């Protein structure tokens, strides 16, 4: 059974919402995934982030607050049976497989999507992350002790943190070469003048980092970097061997 929220008002169930996406929004406005059309609910009231088997609730600065089991919360790791209250409406969280609730084990465990069917459901191809998601095979990989509880269910959202790191470039700002730019296509790009000052920009899962290799430490936004790799953000200005260049992402 996949995770879901059961919306109710005064004890009467109104509707069920599967938590099938990484982000599920709750609020009064129609653009929310879970629209609760009541004035006690803010336009953008709360957000639920779902990663594999687990869901996490965050209040988005709502006027009347978000409550879980009667307690006001800002952020909350949802556990099976939790009741979320927004205004007068209640959302019961149903997920018997939430990993986060097994609080007693110390062993490292692989979080697996909750499914066992060997027959992949027909999928419609979407772009980007959705396609990657759809292509995942539907085979269970539960540790034996959990496998017994597993039952068929749709694939919950997969993490895809590093899949879409955008390409980036550096552009020279001064001197004869001003305006020249270089796309950072390589995992490791070397910049500078041999024997004077050399640095590299490396691409990691979480972004681009500059590291000193030879000569004095490169200067980023007026500050020399240390021995650690320095993360680069949009419009950072790197000063290397007297040449200033700007880092930016290609959109």
């Amino acid at each position, binding site marked *: 059974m996949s995770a879901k929220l059961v919306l109710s008002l005064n004890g009467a169930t109104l509707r069920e919402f599967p938590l099938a996406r990484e982000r599920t929004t709750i609020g009064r406005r129609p653009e929310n995934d879970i629209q609760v059309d009541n004035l006690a609910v803010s336009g953008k009231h709360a957000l639920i982030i779902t990663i594999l088997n687990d869901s996490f609730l965050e209040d988005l600065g709502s006027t009347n607050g978000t409550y879980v089991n009667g307690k006001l919360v800002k952020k909350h790791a949802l556990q099976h049976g939790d009741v979320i209250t927004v205004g007068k409406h209640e959302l019961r969280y149903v997920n018997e497989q939430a990993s986060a609730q*097994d609080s007693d084990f110390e*062993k490292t465990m692989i979080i697996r999507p909750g499914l066992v069917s060997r027959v992949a459901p027909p999928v419609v191809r979407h772009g980007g992350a959705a396609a990657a998601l759809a292509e995942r095979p539907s085979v269970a990989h539960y540790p034996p002790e959990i496998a017994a509880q597993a039952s068929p269910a749709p694939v919950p959202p997969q993490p895809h943190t590093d899949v879409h790191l955008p390409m980036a470039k550096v552009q020279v700002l001064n001197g004869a070469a001003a305006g020249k730019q*270089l796309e950072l296509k*390589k*995992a*490791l790009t070397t910049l500078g*003048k041999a024997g004077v000052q050399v640095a590299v920009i490396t691409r990691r*899962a979480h972004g681009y980092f500059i590291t000193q290799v030879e000569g004095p430490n490169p200067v980023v936004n007026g500050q020399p970097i240390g021995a650690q790799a320095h993360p680069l953000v949009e419009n950072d200005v790197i000063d290397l061997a007297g040449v200033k260049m700007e880092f930016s992402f290609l959109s």
Partner: protein
Amino acid sequence: MSLRNKLQMAGISDVGLRRGHNEDRIATDPRLGLAVLADGMGGYRAGEVASAMAVSVIVEELRKGLRHNPPQRLDEDSGYTLGSLLVREAIGRANESIYQAAQEQPQCQGMGTTLVSLLFYDNQVSVAHVGDSRLYRLRRGEIEQLTADHSLMQELIDRGFYTPEEARRNVQKNLVTRAVGVDPTVNADLQEEPVLPGDLYLLCSDGLSDLVDDEGIRTTLTRYGNHLPEAAERLVQQANANGGTDNISVILVRALRPFPARRHGGWYSRMLDWFT
């Protein structure tokens, strides 16, 4: 080119104080410039099988692959060196082997392993990892974690849901979101880093990083780093002194001197002087 005289390596895998058996596996090959560490998971000792398979397949594949492919050569399409691509391929092979074994043997169902591996060549290192086994680097007295865990905790931090502090309080640290051998394919993170003489690299399983913080690691590496076997021993002792709740594995690699690939102009012959 053998890297035996350019790199120094030492490693220990310790069962810890609370586990009956060791599901971690390590391997080093200083000649090839290769270090691999795996932390297996799965019931009925299947974790041991997974980590052992991962390490042996990766070492074997790279021994074969490096015979005919210069690791420093750049693949223009991917932006990675052949070295990095060989590592990725080897991890893919390991994944297939483990996945297939898990399908065929009921007692191995659900087994998998985290992994971190280093391949050194041409004054740089290809780093690959899956799961929460980590790579740290000590350079000029500063410690830096070069890998980002594939764990529920890290995923929540990446999405801005929790600060690292909040995540430590609210999320279990031992839930990994990626592992080798649990799906027909695996997505390993791949990165290339420049290596400087004097650098000290530490590969470790979460049995160390859960129990010894960055500062504790830095202090020990700084104090005992001149003798790698002792430094490795001290790290394991620290983790055991803090509870030894899991298997503890560490590999240390010291870059002693430059190791450029033999070609004109040294390792930054591909350096870009485009702005001069």
